[in-house]
């Protein structure tokens, strides 16, 4: 072995060792932090989900723990979903009292608008929230509850209030207002909420008959 090769090998072994030591320390640091923070983060995410569900389903409506009553439903045109979505069944004293469901308005100005819709057993909307969207900032984003109260006009509505033909924005002769300059966004939301009500009406009997799953708990 020539001295040069020997030196090169020694150098390679040294750099490899240093890199290995740094990688090990970095990994250990990450593993330790992950281990310490994971339970707190998971708790925070559950609390956030519960709070979001609480915004669309009034607390007086149910006494089960909604998070344990979550079920997955297959994609459905009425929900606008292309992937399985979640649905939470609300019960009071064991009786079906409403549901929160995920729906998608696929025809927003910027693509999909993700919605969470709460509906009581009588088919009345208890609340709607936009959970994700790509609408134009400052123009179409008033559908967010944080930006304006526009989304509140759905509360109390049902398939008969207003009549199905009036489930449109005011500009199209319907019952829901929309701000000038951004009609595509509210049009998509109104259509998606109406479809979700249709979905609920179609499956209501099955929801009411479904027994609580074994993992479901009281709140």
């Amino acid at each position: 072995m020539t001295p040069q090769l020997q030196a090169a090998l020694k150098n390679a072994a040294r750099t490899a060792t240093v890199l290995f030591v740094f990688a090990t320390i970095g990994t250990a640091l990450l593993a330790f932090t992950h281990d310490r923070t994971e339970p707190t983060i998971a708790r925070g995410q559950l609390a956030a989900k519960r709070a979001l569900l609480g915004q669309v389903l009034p607390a007086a409506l149910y006494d089960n723990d909604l998070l344990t009553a979550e079920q997955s439903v297959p994609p459905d045109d009425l929900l606008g979903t292309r992937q399985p979505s979640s649905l939470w069944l609300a019960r009071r004293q064991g009786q079906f009292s409403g549901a929160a469901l995920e729906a998608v308005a696929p025809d927003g100005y910027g693509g999909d608008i993700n919605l969470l819709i709460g509906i009581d057993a009588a088919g009345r909307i208890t609340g709607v929230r936009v959970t994700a969207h790509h609408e134009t900032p400052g123009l179409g984003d008033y559908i967010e509850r944080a930006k304006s109260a526009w989304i509140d006009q759905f509360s109390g509505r049902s398939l008969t209030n207003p009549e199905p033909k009036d489930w449109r924005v005011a500009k199209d002769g319907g019952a829901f207002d929309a701000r000038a300059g951004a009609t595509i966004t509210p049009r998509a939301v109104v259509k998606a909420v109406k479809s979700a009500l249709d979905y609920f009406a179609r499956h209501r009997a099955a929801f009411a008959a479904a027994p609580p799953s074994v993992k479901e708990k009281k709140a």
Partner: protein
Amino acid sequence: MMTMSEFRSLFHNGLIKQNTGLVQLLGLCPLLAISNNVVNALSLGLATTMVMAASSGAVSSVRNFVPNEIRIPVFVLIIAALVTVIDLSMNAFVHPLYLVLGIFIPLITTNCIVLARADAFAAKNHPLHSVVDAVAMGLGLTLVLIVLGAIRELAGKGTLLSGIDLVFGEAAKGWVLHVLPNYRGFLLAILPPGAFLALGMLIAANNWNKARVARRVRHAVPAAA
């Protein structure tokens, strides 16, 4: 230890002479994306400063153990590990702040200014100097972000500090300044093209000012020419 003049020159370098946003033009991706209002801009600027100070300090402390050939992978490893640790810890322990800054923290990893300062400065200097340099660079970036955010928010929505309630709670809702009442809005300023236009104008103004100062210096000292 550090003398006052060293300290001052590091800050002059970070804030003006080598300003990351206006002179080095590093880390433009987050700069352009987040500067659509003052509150976002300030939040990203401070988060970046924090990460830079931590990573420069760490890189500088281990600089004598890292062979030159593998310094870049080691620095990237340190920065990525630090950013992740900060991201996870903020998510767990200061959740309200995380909800505001959370989306910006992973963005910081993509900010080449952090690696640039680690390699160009922290790898060759004492940890104390490196941390001061990182803070100065970070504050220089924050300053540009705030100016850009203010221009875009004012032109786009006619307000300043909108969204501050997301950082300081409901009570801060009243702090929003409606500078131009009944303003109809100018969407272009808020969208990405507005970021390029506003940053271009800021760089032009900075270059014009530099040229003016240079001319004045030449006139003032004719003998030196």
